[in-house]
């Protein structure tokens, strides 16, 4: 099972995530296999709606990264407790900076 799928309680993650991964990674063989498995288990309507979700977010990320929009403050605030509970904040604020990398 996909390790990420086993780490979530969301239903059918083991069918949804491999399909999304295959599409984004351009793995044609895996895409066909995961598509067939998803359709066989959840039905063709679920397949279509999953494909639509993957596809639109594959585009949304291009808009976000190309324009450089930041995440909204309220979303940062909403995840504060989760980040604290998971210890993510112990790793500090992300400091990756492509401008700095490009200047090297």
């Amino acid at each position, binding site marked *: 099972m996909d390790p990420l799928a086993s780490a979530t309680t*969301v239903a059918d993650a083991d069918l949804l995530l491999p399909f999304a991964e295959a599409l984004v990674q351009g793995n044609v063989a895996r895409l066909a296999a995961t598509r067939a498995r998803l359709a066989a288990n959840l039905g063709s309507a679920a397949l279509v709606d999953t494909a639509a979700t993957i596809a639109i977010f594959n*585009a949304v990320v291009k808009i976000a990264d190309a324009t450089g929009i*930041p995440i909204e403050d309220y979303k940062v605030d909403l995840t504060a407790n989760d980040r604290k509970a998971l210890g993510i904040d112990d790793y500090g604020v992300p400091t990756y900076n492509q401008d700095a990398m490009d200047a090297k």
Partner: protein
Amino acid sequence: MTKATFQYPESSWPVRTDLTSAHARAWRHIAAPGTWLSGRERVAVANETRVAPACAHCDVIAAALSPVQVAGQHTRASDLPQLWVEVIHRIRNDAARLSDSWYESVLERGMTAQQYVEIVGVLAHIVAIDSFTDALGLERHKLPEPLAGEPARVLPAGAKLGLARVPTVAPEDVGPGEADLYANLSGANIHRALSLVPAEVWGFFDLDTVMYLPDSQLRDFEHEFRAIDHAQIELVAARVSALNSCFY
């Protein structure tokens, strides 16, 4: 463009009619003269977006520590200016490593911010629809024939720098004589991203509300609107964002 290009085959998966209609509208939107780009330029941007994943130079860039360390020419499929080709290929193939300094260099080399935003808009439309057909194992749609006419060349009066690397229009800065840029949208940052070219906001989020969910349904957890539920939709969306190294 003929309507027939958007008849998803009945023998394939049961594509919802609202999806088919939205994709057909997007195709017409791409073909028509835009705000700063002609119909011919918009279709050329769409074509260049399609071929970019096969660009050998982009593979070299992707393997480099920094994209600016790599010299060379992109494998192109259009007669668009070289700078436009670079912009399209970088956004299509390496968007997570775009930087403010690279964007500034694009402006210094002659592209306007509004041209850049419109290119992003066209590219996003194509990526969304091609990703959909690819996911379902369907043949990609033939690109539309460009429509004649002049770009509208209308700049929103309230556009400002500050939120992003491109100028954007805050909901409170939509002018009294201007069409409602954020009708049925919350005005979240992702809605504002393309707002320097309002037609791209309307075009892309016309797709988004059908392929994802309308804003009014995003937090309506009492009802489900798709064949997968809210949690499943958000899980898939988050995974796609992570795979693209996008942290928005």
